């Protein structure tokens, strides 16, 4: 979809910002350009929409050399979102999002419809926000509108320069998660620039790690972590790469989907029988509606008649989209080596144990993540 071939940028004063960088981004994938500041990642990205003219090399989009298209025409088909957002303060949220549709000559009605659609996609109530001005928005809301505006003209390609950079950590996490969900829906080809290794691992289908204007390694995040090409990559991903790797996998991918469960009214010996059959020392206790209520452990069964007498109620549970680092953190803080995975109605979907995590990571380190 996007192919860079020996792309080079030399500034008039002789500084080489980007040197012969080549890589290809597959349609619908999110590629992260990662690296320390000054490594040329932003320059590389800006050469794609020609905000920075390249010195040498070629960039193809869908096989088409992008130096042959009119630059403004080209940019109208490449969404562009930046860290400082740059919303037009004198235009409403709606007008901001309608910028590219208007340039493309859509009808007023289509423009408005698009703005409403995108606000909804970014979980902002259109009626509430469409007529607001950027100054009336919080930082997180502005970033959302920035992303919505970048998607305005329904471009196949999206360039994002630290789009979650200028907001507080909690909002950033939220936006990252939401954006991943949105990407599942819209399947754009995305190039995202960041210096944050966690963001790269979390967001990227592929990561292009750059150093001093050169591409060092272009690989899926698991390879970057566990098969670093050289010592620079290894030191950049850090000694705690094993922990970072936990971010690559979501609970739904590894959870035990039909773990042994028990009803509070059940006899303890029946529950114990079930544990024995599975070779474990616990069952998840769920109420008649399927809601997770807690755990019953084999060690407590002595002398108890019904499961409810030995149930240790627990509210600690992870969502199915939580990454393993979150799951592990929940286990460590709750002092339990088994964790429930629940849906939004607290219905049990599965169970993750320490052992699951260990085995999964061993596999990842050896074979990489199966995409």
């Amino acid at each position, binding site marked *: 979809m996007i192919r860079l071939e020996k792309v080079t940028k030399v500034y008039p004063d002789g500084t080489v910002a980007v040197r012969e960088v080549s890589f290809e981004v597959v349609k619908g994938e999110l590629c992260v350009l990662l690296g320390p500041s000054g490594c040329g990642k932003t320059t590389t990205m800006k050469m794609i*929409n020609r*905000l920075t003219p390249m010195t040498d090399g070629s960039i193809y989009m869908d096989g088409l050399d992008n130096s042959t298209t009119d*630059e*403004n*025409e*080209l*940019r*109208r088909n*490449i969404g*562009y979102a*930046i*860290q*400082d*957002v*740059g*919303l*037009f*303060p*004198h*235009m*409403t949220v709606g007008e901001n999002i309608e*910028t*590219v549709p208007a*340039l493309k000559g859509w009808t007023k009605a289509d423009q408005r419809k698009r703005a409403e659609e995108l606000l909804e996609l970014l979980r902002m109530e259109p009626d509430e926000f469409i007529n607001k*001005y*950027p*100054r*009336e*928005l*919080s*930082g*997180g809301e502005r*970033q959302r509108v*920035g992303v919505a*505006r970048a998607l*305005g003209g329904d471009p196949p390609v999206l*360039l994002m320069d630290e789009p979650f950079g200028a*907001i*507080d950590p*909690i*909002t*950033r996490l939220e936006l990252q998660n939401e954006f991943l969900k949105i990407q599942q829906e819209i399947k754009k080809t995305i190039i995202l620039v960041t210096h944050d290794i966690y963001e790269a691992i979390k967001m990227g289908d592929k990561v292009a790690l750059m150093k001093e204007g050169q591409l060092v390694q272009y690989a899926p995040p698991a390879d970057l972590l566990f098969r670093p090409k050289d010592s620079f990559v290894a030191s950049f991903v850090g000694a705690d790469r094993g922990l970072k790797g936990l971010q690559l996998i979501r609970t739904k991918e590894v959870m035990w989907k039909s773990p042994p469960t028990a009803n509070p009214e059940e006899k303890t010996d029946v529950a114990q029988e079930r544990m024995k059959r599975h070779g474990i020392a616990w069952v998840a206790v769920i109420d008649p509606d399927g809601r997770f209520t807690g755990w019953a452990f084999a060690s407590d069964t002595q002398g108890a008649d019904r499961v409810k007498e030995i149930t240790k109620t627990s509210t600690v549970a992870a969502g199915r989209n939580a990454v393993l680092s979150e799951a592990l953190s929940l286990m460590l803080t709750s002092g339990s080596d088994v964790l429930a995975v629940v849906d939004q109605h607290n219905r049990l979907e599965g169970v993750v144990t320490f052992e699951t995590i260990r085995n999964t990571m061993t596999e990842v380190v050896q074979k990489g993540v199966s995409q």
Partner: protein
Amino acid sequence: MRRQVILFALLTLLLGATFWVTSLGKVGIYSTFTYGDLLHSAWAHFKMVFIAVFIAAAMGVPLGILVTRPGFSPFALPVIGGASIGQTIPSLAVIAVMAPLLGFGLQSAVVALVIYGLLPILRNAYTSIRTIDPAIIEAAQGMGLTRMQIARKIELPLARPVIMAGIKVSTVITVGTAELAVLVGGEGLGKITLTGVFAQEPLIILQGAAPTAAMAITLGLILELAERRMTPRGLRLEPENTLGVVRHESNT
């Protein structure tokens, strides 16, 4: 708001003083100027200011904007610097130089006033564009707006209030400076003030100075209103918290 109240009070006081002196008819051995003289001079004064500011704006705004364009940035410093020098020369000197060059009359006065009033307009026009958040321009370019579209839809609306503020400042300054125009044969309220100076009669000086000050305040207030009217709605709002703090109570 409080500022405006004070200005209105001052305005009333100044106009009151003018009417009072005029109604006296005679101070010492001198007759005061009549209402007819006063109106005539005030109108001449206003006309001179209007022409001078109009010319200064017609030159300063385009020039100030022009030197922000990429190809012209090397000229920015000389142009703004040149205009600054124009303003550092005492206004009396500027006006005095004009008479031998252009002869006595309105033209000399206007040229001097333009030179003197150009700087605020030029400087504000220049800064109005230069202080626009670069991220806004980058985003606009990245979305495929042409240079002209960026100028027309983004830069000018954002610059407008600052440009208007420059015109306002220049107008207020020019109303004051125009007092001196009488020295090079211009008409205006300066004539009354100067008569008072020669006669060493403070009340007649007041008869010329008070309406001048009143005119400066009035024009300042009118242009301030215009400035506010020309500020896009989105810019009139106070910026809110820039942190990602959630401000909406949940409805559930």
